[in-house]
């Protein structure tokens, strides 16, 4: 019963914060609400027993990415926006309709799917075998560094490339490295 209450609470917080991200016309508020969503998602990971990921989620998203966003917003010095949303009533309606139908389709598919129901039933049995925090992280690490070590290394290379690319993109013209 407690996990149900926890879930509903977290679900409400996450959805509310997410909605605010989309609806707030001031980007600073959007950013703060996104941070809230991240924290909510992190908590949801905890309810599912993914403790390590919850921690990473907090550190990477709520910590690093959000700071990046806020820094950029600060750099741009953006106030309340005049045209926060796209114009055009028909296209707007079509867009909202598209999103709504997509959501409806997915939800309908989930509730009608026999596979999901079957999996949902098997979960308590899996929980009964006794997965703990310790072997969760350990098995994650083993999987990551044994089976997926190449993917891991490739990610490292991607990050390096991206770090260089980002510097090249946002390099300031003028200043100490002026060339033109």
């Amino acid at each position, binding site marked *: 019963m407690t996990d149900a209450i926890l879930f509903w609470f977290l679900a409400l917080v996450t959805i509310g914060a997410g909605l605010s991200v989309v609806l707030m016309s001031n980007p600073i508020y959007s950013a703060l609400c996104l941070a809230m969503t991240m924290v909510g998602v992190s908590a949801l990971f905890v309810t599912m027993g993914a403790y390590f990921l919850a921690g990473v989620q907090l550190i990477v998203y709520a910590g690093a990415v959000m700071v990046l966003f806020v820094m950029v917003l600060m750099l741009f010095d953006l106030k309340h926006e005049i045209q926060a949303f796209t114009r055009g009533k028909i*296209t707007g309606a079509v*867009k909202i309709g*598209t999103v709504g139908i*997509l959501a409806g*389709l997915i939800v*309908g598919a989930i509730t009608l799917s026999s596979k999901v129901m079957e999996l949902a039933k098997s979960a308590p049995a899996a929980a009964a075998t006794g997965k703990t925090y310790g072997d969760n992280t350990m098995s994650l690490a083993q999987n990551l560094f044994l089976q997926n070590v190449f993917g891991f290394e490739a990610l490292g290379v991607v990050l390096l490339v991206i770090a260089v690319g980002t510097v090249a993109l946002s390099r300031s013209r003028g200043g100490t490295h002026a060339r033109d």
Partner: protein
Amino acid sequence: MDHQLLIAILLLSPLVGFVLNGTRFRSQNYVLAGAIATGAVVVSFICSVMLMLQLIDADPEHRRLTATFFEWIAVGGLKINAGFVVDQISSIMILIITGVGSLIHLFSIGYMHHDKGVTKYFAYLNLFIFNMLILVLGDSLVTMFVGWEGVGLCSYLLIGFWFSDSAKAAAGMKAFITNRIGDAAFIIGMFILFFTFGTLNMYELNALAPTVVEASWLGAATLGTLMLFIGATGKSAQVPLYVWLPDAMAGPTPVSALIHAATMVTAGVYMIVRLNPMFVAAPNTMMVIAIVGAVTAVMAATIGLTQFDIKKVLAYSTVSQLGYMFLAVGVGAFGAGMMHLMTHAFFKALMFLGSGSVIHAMDGEQDIQLMGGLKKKLPITHATFVMGWLAIIGFPLFSGFFSKDEILWQAYSSPRGSVFLWMAGALGATLTAFYMTRLMALTFWGGSRVPKSVHPHESPAIMTIPLIVLAILSVVGGFVGVPHVISEYLGHIPNFWEHWLEPVIRRLPEGVSEHSATEEWGLMATSVTLALVSAFTAYRIYTNGKKTNEQIAKAFGPVYNVVNNKYFVDEAYFGGIINPLVKQSQNLWMYIDVNFIDKTTHVIADMTKGVGSLARSFQTGNMQQYAMYIGLGVVTVLTFVLMR
């Protein structure tokens, strides 16, 4: 040296010259351009001589040097190699091409030195030599055809060399298009031969030829060889496709000497000699060739009587002499045809270069009515020109005498000849003597009619040396093939020529008709007497200048008019073929093309444009709209998947 390497150098040397000159075609350094081009051809000439020496050393039955560089085409049953052969026939040709070619290149340095496009000119000349060598050496009809087309291209480029003059450019086009007609027939001939014999290699074709016995008109060998012969009439300027050659004189004079006298125009004769077993197997084709040759010889000679342009006279003379060669191969005298090809290459190249020297001296004037008395002003040119003149009218013991009389004798005595062919040939010889003497008289002898503004002068040594060499060859060139009846009185000179060609010439299946030596002497005396009498008559008429041209024209009346207008052949072609074609094409253009095809395409284009502008409205540049399309697509696919 290895003969394959020699053949490669022989072929590639002019090509290298072409590339070297062609890449720097704007240059006006005539010394460098001429040195490169002449050097390239001289290298080829040296290779030719070495190949000839190797051939002479070889056993007479195995005188064949082949070089296959790579497999060129292999489609189904058709296998064509880039293979080249030097044998008894092609060795003579490469010697003529590179030997006479070297001399003409040398002459060109002097003749073209003031021209702005001199480097381009030499590049074209080298390209021509390259293509001509491919034509001559190719071991299959397809390889030969590559050269055949290549020399046609070079001929077009060089006739229209001074293309800023629209008449000269038109002459180039006329030559090219007329040649195309013949080339189409040549291709059809190749198709027929390949369809029938399954090969286009000339040696294999020749080996298969004796299996064919054909008397009908519709046999494969007859049709195929007939088509090849039509191709030859285009390239070698025979009736009815000879009309381009006189106009081709628009090009520089050395070009006329090289391409339109000595080498390219003889390609048709060479092709027939090369395929002689195949032609022997088709008696009807041989008959057509002989008749066409005889008709051309006489007809071109008559036109030559009335021309006043020094190069036009020589051009009609060339057509006429080519007619002799075809007459020779048509009666089965392939050796005599080849020999006349060679002697003609000598004396006609000599005369064209001589005329070039005259034109050079006259500052570009070509009308012989404005010449006369040039003998004193141009002593070397005159002396060499006289040698060529004596050779072409068949003065005894000059080179033309041996080859021409051999042809006339064969036309009479061969089983496929007849007395009428001999009469046509003798008439042609008489006319030739007349118009050539007329040319000599009007140009070099008699009183001077040169305008006061022109001061003729002898050409520099670089132009006279080739003339002298060619003059010597014109005089002695005939002694390689002295007929038996004459050699008896000259200390039994062996007939090298017949000996040399014997293994590659197929004997006529009819055998040899019996004729006495008296008969041969009689015919020879008749034709020579006729020629000398007519030459003397022409000398009397034109040297004294008593009878003007108008008097002659009046004396012959309408006949002169018709001949002077070249039998209205050009006009007939225009009225009968070209103009109706143009008219019909215009109708097609106006009614079919504009009304139907254009409109259809316009409708299609408009429809495409309409659809395009519709699609364009989706391309707003608004990326959120694009994202919406993606979303709609996802929704559609998901709906489809879930509703299934």
